[in-house]
């Protein structure tokens, strides 16, 4: 039973991370799965959300942090909303010059904004604390819940060890529930939206933009709205990550973990299907975590094993594109195209 705490920690960490990825995949599903917008700068919005939330809810600059701005110590919910709003504004700025053009331009511009955000995080120490990042980002209700469980354990010293461990981890259980609730609420909103008249228009744009425009819809405006909405959800994902990890730095948001893996999750799960997006997140994160375990038995160095895992993910993407491009859960109803 000594490993019990380790196992609980791992399960919670796994589920919180997969749930956070589920949020990001829902955001991408609105952009790509429903509207056909090719955003390959998810990492940028993810990071922007995390940093914004940390600036709004986090500690003010102190002696050991190099920054001179931010740290308003507002409650978590303000951080979450702030993250969504800032990401939405940046998406608007990116969408304006690119969404009237071919899909390639949005792709290039989203890579560009992700890279620019990364450079700002690294270089503007007054705002972001540079490569050191933010530490001690407060988790919502931490003191209340952790305090209560500590007090309970203190007054019940003779509990069996496994019950003791379960209770000692009560804050992590709470955060897991929080992530899943946020994921579920976003899922319900997305389902409502996708099946609304608005959702029918954006799916029509994905199928045939010219035909949709011919029906009198302002496709540019709908595409901007979908891009902004997706980016706001990604910002919420970033916020959820920051307040769980409690420490963020520019390397937390590299393109591999921040963008590429989310694409694989959505495509594997089924682009255009919100359930598929969430399923894909858990499956791909499961494979990713599982291979971490497996590579320990291979005769390679740690960096080589890391490369092998990425190669595996890249190969899986190609295999899905070649043989099952619709993913595990394809969207139920396909619209008729005019082609």
């Amino acid at each position, binding site marked *: 039973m000594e490993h019990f705490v380790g196992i609980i920690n791992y399960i919670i960490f796994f589920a919180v991370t997969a749930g956070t990825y589920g949020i990001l995949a829902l955001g991408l599903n609105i952009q790509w799965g429903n509207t*056909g917008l*090719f955003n*390959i700068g998810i990492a940028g919005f993810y990071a922007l959300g995390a940093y914004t939330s940390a600036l709004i809810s986090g500690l003010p600059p102190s002696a050991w942090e190099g920054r001179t701005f931010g740290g308003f110590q507002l409650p978590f919910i303000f951080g979450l909303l702030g993250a969504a709003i800032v990401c939405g504004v940046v998406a608007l700025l990116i969408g304006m*010059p*690119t969404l*009237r*053009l071919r*899909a*390639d*331009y949005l*792709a*290039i*511009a989203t*890579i*560009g*904004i992700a*890279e*620019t955000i990364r*450079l*700002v995080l*690294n*270089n503007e120490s007054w705002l972001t604390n540079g490569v050191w990042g933010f530490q001690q980002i407060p988790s919502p209700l931490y003191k209340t819940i952790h305090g209560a469980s500590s007090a309970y354990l203190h007054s019940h010293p003779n509990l069996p060890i496994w019950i003791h461990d379960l209770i000692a981890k009560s804050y992590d259980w709470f955060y897991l529930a929080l992530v899943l609730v946020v994921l579920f609420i976003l899922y319900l909103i997305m389902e409502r939206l996708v099946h609304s008249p608005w959702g029918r228009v954006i799916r029509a744009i994905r199928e045939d933009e010219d035909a949709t425009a011919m029906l009198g819809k302002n496709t540019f405006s709908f595409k901007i709205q979908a891009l902004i909405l997706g980016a706001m959800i990604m910002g919420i994902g970033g916020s959820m990550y920051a307040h769980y990890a409690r420490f963020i730095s520019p390397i937390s948001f590299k393109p*591999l973990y921040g963008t*590429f893996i989310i*694409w694989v999750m959505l*495509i594997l799960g089924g682009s255009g299907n919100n359930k598929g997006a969430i399923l894909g997140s858990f499956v791909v994160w499961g494979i990713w975590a599982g291979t971490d375990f497996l590579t320990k038995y291979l005769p*390679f160095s740690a*960096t*080589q094993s890391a*490369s*092998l895992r*990425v*190669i595996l*993910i*890249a*190969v899986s*993407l*190609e295999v899905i*594109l*070649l043989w099952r*491009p619709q993913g595990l859960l394809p969207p139920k109803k396909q619209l008729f195209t005019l082609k």
Partner: protein
Amino acid sequence: MTTLARIPQLLVYGIISGSILSLGGIGVSLTYSILGFSNFAHGDFMALGAYIALGLFTLFTGLGIPNTRFGPLSFGFGFTVAFILAIALTAIAVILIDRLLFRRLRRSGPIILMMSSIGVALGLRNILQFFWSPQPHYYTQMIQRAVSLPALGIRIKPDEVFIIATAIVLVVLVHSFMRYTKMGKAMRAVADNATLAQVTGINTDRVIIWTWVIAAGLAATAGILSGIENKFITPELGWQMLLSIFAGVVLGGIGNPYGAILGGMVIGISEEVSTAFISTGYKPAVAFVIMIIMLLVKPTGLLGRKN
């Protein structure tokens, strides 16, 4: 030194970096116009070329093939042979990737191809990391003396003259190929209208192979030249340049190889000159901002036609 006095030297650096970006950009532009998608693996084709050259050069040195330096340059016979073979091998590798993946996905449309190219990019980069580690590798440890030209206020190394000269020669070669050979004309025809070209009896599959030969060959060259300029290579070298390359291609007019050359040069020079005013770390952001401004003013680019 005052900011103004540094400008001539920064212009030289800009032309060197612009030469490399232009060579990378021609390939991106050709694959865009002929195959119809933005190839995000192009940067990693550059890295692949640079590492194949490194592998061959190491092999040659091990076999005792002499590398007597050419005059003032930092490399000689052995490296030159490795350079040329690496160009050929990169082209072959890229054609194999096309047969294995891109050709099968061509019917799925440009976005699926783009997505597939991102998978290729990540896969290639990690294959290089697997065999060579993410740490830098050195073509040479030699420190080359720069030649000072006080009248112009600049210093330049013999290797850097070689880089600029190679870029000029290759641009002239590509231009002649596109303009005067049958294959070059066929390529331009496919770029203009693929269906029409096919109807007139042009073998589009051969055109595609030649497109990859030129794109991959120039990518390998750009990767190796960046290794000669920086003295070291990493698996991320191409990925780090990709945003600047795309910015150059969009600036010049996506799909137009001449635009890619002009755009690459403008981006290279702007990035270097910007370091006189803002942090060196922001070079790729400078490229990005220039690209966004171009998209707002004239999305078809400097040399692009009206859509």
